[in-house]
């Protein structure tokens, strides 16, 4: 069943939050037809990786490589990235 893939969301972590979580990527599963906000997804992640919780207020969320507000609804197949304050340059 290809459904498995379609029902999942890929989450990417970088920099300090990657080190705190101890992972650079994980997969979250959605129930069929489930609508989850990006913010709720963060909470779900923090339940599994409590070390990232203190950073959540600083995190911007990107879905499919675009910044989105926390109310943004994440869909199966989306690529979600947790962007702590950037410091390139």
């Amino acid at each position, binding site marked *: 069943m290809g459904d498995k893939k379609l029902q999942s969301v890929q989450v990417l972590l970088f920099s300090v939050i990657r080190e705190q979580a101890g992972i650079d990527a994980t997969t979250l599963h959605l129930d069929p037809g489930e609508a989850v906000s990006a913010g709720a997804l963060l909470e779900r992640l923090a339940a599994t990786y409590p070390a990232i919780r203190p950073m959540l207020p600083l995190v911007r969320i990107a879905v499919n490589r675009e910044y989105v507000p926390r109310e943004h609804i994440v869909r199966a197949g989306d690529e979600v990235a947790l962007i702590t304050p*950037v410091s390139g340059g």
Partner: protein
Amino acid sequence: MTGISNDSVWITIQEMPLSLEEVSEFLRVEEAGGVDIFLGTTRRWTETEEKAAGGKTVRRETVLLEYECYKPMALKEMHRLVDEAFARWPVRRACLLHRIGEVSLREISVIAGVAAPHRADAFTACRYLIDTLKTRAPIWKKEHFVDGNARWVEGDSAPEPFSSPDTM
């Protein structure tokens, strides 16, 4: 991307050292009289006010910077920033190059360059590119100090609601 011919734009993220000579060759075109180029380099000394030291200024010695990025999104944002510069100012060519991995003292981590008919626009657009890159491109810097410690540099980009592309 979005109407900017590739001939006029050069964007890259790479582990190899960045070449200023190639940047100059790319930016110097017959349509431009003013070219501004910004280089970000690894600085040895950083002065910070440490709470632990009672607000005293502490001078830390860096040995190298380490850069990490979310590459596909960083490239997308960099293209967007350059598109915005072209839309706002009479820019003829622009480049935005970022190195990732380890960058030693004096070496170049980023190059932003703009060629415009006149100098004021070259300066303004170049400044725009580097300032917005530093708040929007998902790239992170870790400082490695001479004492063996390391820390991720705290960026100052706001969390959300995320600013529209036109916010400066």
